[in-house]
């Protein structure tokens, strides 16, 4: 077992549902220990453990986990155990980081535009600012809880459309057909819509879709104000423009958090006495 294999298993365990960590850790470490004995690559085992933790999140209690060995009670209920490290949140944060980096690269490109390679770089940066965040968002949708698989699949399809729309805005193609504010407005409101749809939210929670739109209006006013100073350096203006463009996307994350809080509060209010099931386990 090398340090890298061990770290992979540690990462895999931390990504695993809390209820499964002890078992998975012991099982995977024992497998790493025995890899040489069976002529297997411990690195590949570590990678396998990592992908298992990353892509297999369903945390149904396994009959023989955490119990005395060889109990064979059939398991029928399915529920997800919350993770300590929320992978969805990490993916959303990475998506936002990618947009931020992409915006910085665009500002730099603005200074060195007009070179023969600048068009190629623009396309690459388009991927960083729109493509990668789109993929990460789809990953977060895939891991989101509350909705059906069909809803999540539809939401991913809608995300592809939103990603293409935002990408067309970044390269300038979309701006030939619609104003900036309209494209960004559709993308941010659409992102919140897609998130709520994938998670199966209902009722007044949907009002949070308006939050990024309102923030966009405020950001547009701030942009107008910034551009009214004709003496400001071009780099400062470009920086202000792009950072203010990212603010509505930050509002999307806030809207999603708010939606989660509102819906969990309404669930608690609707069932104040049924916090535990017959077996004593939490029901939500």
């Amino acid at each position, binding site marked *: 077992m090398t340090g890298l294999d061990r770290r992979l298993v540690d990462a895999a365990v931390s990504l695993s549902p809390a209820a499964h960590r002890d078992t998975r850790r012991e099982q995977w470490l*024992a*497998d790493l220990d025995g890899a040489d004995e069976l002529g*297997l690559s411990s690195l590949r085992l570590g990678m*396998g453990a990592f992908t298992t933790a990353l892509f297999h999140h369903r945390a149904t209690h396994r*009959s023989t986990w955490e119990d005395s060995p*060889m109990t064979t009670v059939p398991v*029928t209920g399915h529920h997800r155990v919350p993770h300590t490290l929320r992978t969805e949140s990490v993916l959303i944060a990475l998506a936002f980081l990618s947009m931020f980096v992409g915006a910085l690269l665009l500002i730099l490109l603005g200074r060195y535009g007009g070179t023969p390679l600048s068009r190629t770089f623009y396309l690459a940066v388009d991927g960083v600012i729109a493509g990668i965040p789109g993929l990460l968002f789809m990953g977060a949708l895939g891991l989101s809880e509350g909705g059906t698989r069909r809803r999540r699949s539809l939401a991913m399809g809608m995300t592809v459309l939103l990603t293409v729309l935002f990408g067309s805005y970044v390269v300038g193609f979309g701006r030939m057909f619609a104003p900036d504010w309209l494209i960004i407005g559709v993308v941010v409101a659409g992102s919140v819509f897609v998130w709520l749809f994938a998670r199966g939210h209902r009722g007044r929670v949907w009002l949070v879709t308006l939050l990024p739109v309102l923030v966009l209006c405020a950001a547009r006013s701030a942009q107008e104000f910034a551009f009214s100073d004709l003496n400001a350096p071009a780099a400062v203006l470009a920086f202000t423009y792009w950072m203010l463009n990212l603010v509505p996307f930050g509002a999307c994350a806030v809207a999603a958090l708010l939606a989660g809080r509102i819906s969990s509060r309404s669930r608690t209010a609707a069932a104040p006495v049924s916090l535990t099931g017959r077996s004593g386990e939490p029901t939500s």
Partner: protein
Amino acid sequence: MEPLQRVTAPTLDVLECLLGSTEGPVWGLVIIKETGRPSGTVYPLLERLERQGWIVGSWEEAERSGPRRRLYEFTADGRVAAMELVAGAAERRATAAARPSRSARAGGTPGVPGAPSGRTATP
């Protein structure tokens, strides 16, 4: 025990490996080795089979230092269902193998597209 929603080739490999064991519970790593499937495929499969009541896992009781090995064996119902599933798959494979290939039906030499099977072409 719940029926399997999806039976893939790796699922059948894992079931066959467990059925072939004559020495009691099988160590998960041995299943990975014998099936030749990646651990990223076998680990989730074992978890799914265990969750659905086909197999049960237990910890090795041998006196060894370090983490304990995870062993797997069928439940009573799981063994019967796995035998049926594996037998059904073997039957389908045999049927498919016995079926003449398209080239053979067309009179060609199997495996050689377009080659005649001994019939002489006369003008």
